[in-house]
């Protein structure tokens, strides 16, 4: 039931929202989470996102399926980009729709916590001095954020 796309291109959140909600009278709430590339105080020129094609789609579909089992969702869209992404550009969109707000809020938050830990994407920094920086390290707080749903 969910829409999942892994792509290099930017996405259009407004069009995705319209596709999810247009012409429907049963949706009372949508929560759209967008994750952006930060410049880390001017240090970064870009983030390079590597992914595991095939598994990225499959794993996000599994997480989305879990969310749809846990909350009465009326729609769920996940778009995750890969490749070179500049500061200020969006990286990920999670859009959850439901009759009442709590389900949409919780499902979107759950999706992000699981995406961070389980979707096979890896970020590497490109620096404004022209060099290629380090692979971003996974954060313990992201692990902890996922634990709260168990």
């Amino acid at each position, binding site marked *: 039931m969910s829409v999942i796309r892994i792509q290099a291109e930017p996405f259009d959140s407004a069009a995705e929202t319209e596709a999810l909600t247009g012409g429907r009278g049963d949706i009372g709430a949508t929560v759209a989470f967008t*994750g952006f590339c930060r410049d880390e105080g001017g240090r970064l020129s870009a983030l390079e*996102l*590597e*992914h*595991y094609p*095939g*598994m990225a789609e*499959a*794993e996000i579909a599994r997480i989305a399926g879990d969310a749809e089992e846990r909350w009465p969702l009326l729609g769920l869209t996940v778009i*995750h980009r890969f490749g070179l992404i500049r500061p200020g550009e969006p*990286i*990920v969109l999670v859009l959850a729709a439901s009759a009442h707000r709590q389900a949409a809020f919780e499902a979107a938050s759950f999706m*992000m916590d699981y*995406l*961070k*830990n*389980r*979707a*096979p*994407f*890896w*970020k*590497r920094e490109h620096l404004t001095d022209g060099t290629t920086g380090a*692979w*971003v*390290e*996974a954060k313990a707080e*992201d692990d902890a954020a996922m634990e709260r749903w168990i």
Partner: protein
Amino acid sequence: MKLVYFAWVRERIGKTDETIALPEGIATIADLVRWLKTKGEEYEYAFENEAVVRAAIDHVHVKPDAPIAGAREIAFFPPMTGG
């Protein structure tokens, strides 16, 4: 059996993928890692901290004790940092 590598695991091993003929007695992901580490210092480097490297069998996350019999594609990669 196809092996695929990502991010710094890929960089340390120096290839994106390879096809291997599995020797006898390799039953689990942990066995496979132990065997790969005998293949050269690039593998030793990639798996120097075994607890950090994650594995997937046919696009599904698995633990080190997962059996690999029947696997078509096994992936090794660092902790994920998407989202």
